[in-house]
């Protein structure tokens, strides 16, 4: 069974204090790993797709990296507007449809 574990569950940072969020996964053939941002009461917003180990993607203060067992979302010099829950998801190559397994997320709070 595909599994996604995110850590920490919650993270509190001072504005400008860089850190990383972790996503460990077990999947029977990785087709893609996705990062999403979710604001309270809203649907997840797509950030990145990573396809193979060694790949990196960047968007503003966010940088996602991928190894064969985990992915990291690095947040450089965060601002209060980066406060949100960040979700990681993996898509398996098995099945005849887009089977996507989500983690439970890391709730990030950036304090001014």
């Amino acid at each position: 069974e595909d599994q996604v574990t995110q850590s920490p569950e919650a993270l509190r940072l001072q504005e400008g204090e860089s850190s990383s969020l972790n996503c460990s996964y077990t999947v029977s053939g990785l087709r893609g790993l996705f990062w999403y941002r979710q604001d309270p009461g809203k649907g997840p917003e797509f950030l990145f797709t990573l396809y193979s180990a060694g790949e990196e993607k960047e968007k503003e203060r966010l940088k996602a990296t991928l190894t064969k067992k985990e992915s990291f979302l690095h947040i450089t010099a965060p601002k209060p507007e980066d406060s949100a829950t960040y979700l990681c998801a993996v898509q398996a190559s098995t099945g005849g449809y887009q089977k996507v397994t989500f983690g439970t997320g890391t709730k990030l709070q950036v304090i001014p």
Partner: protein
Amino acid sequence: SQTIHQWPATLVQPVGSPLSLECTVEGTSNPNLYWYRQAAGRGLQLLFYSVGIGQISSEVPQNLSASRPQDRQFILSSKKLLLSDSGFYLCAWSVGPGGSYNSPLHFGNGTRLTVT
């Protein structure tokens, strides 16, 4: 650009009442459509997905059902709600057949359902 609309945003319904949540997608054709439920402290749970009109696959046995009467319309229904149906329901779309097989999901803003 593509947009996804989901309504209502919030809903309070008594136990035993029917349910109908609607989702429409604009700006794309033949999308894959999904219904997810998100419970506090738990990952998103896939309820139904559809690869075309009238084609519905169920992932979790329950008293909910889904229908896709038009290419870009997806409806989640129940004849009689249970207390356990309370939660945050999310509709999503992804590129359908002919597109990238590993294209990401794009979500609507969800419906907060409270069954009382």
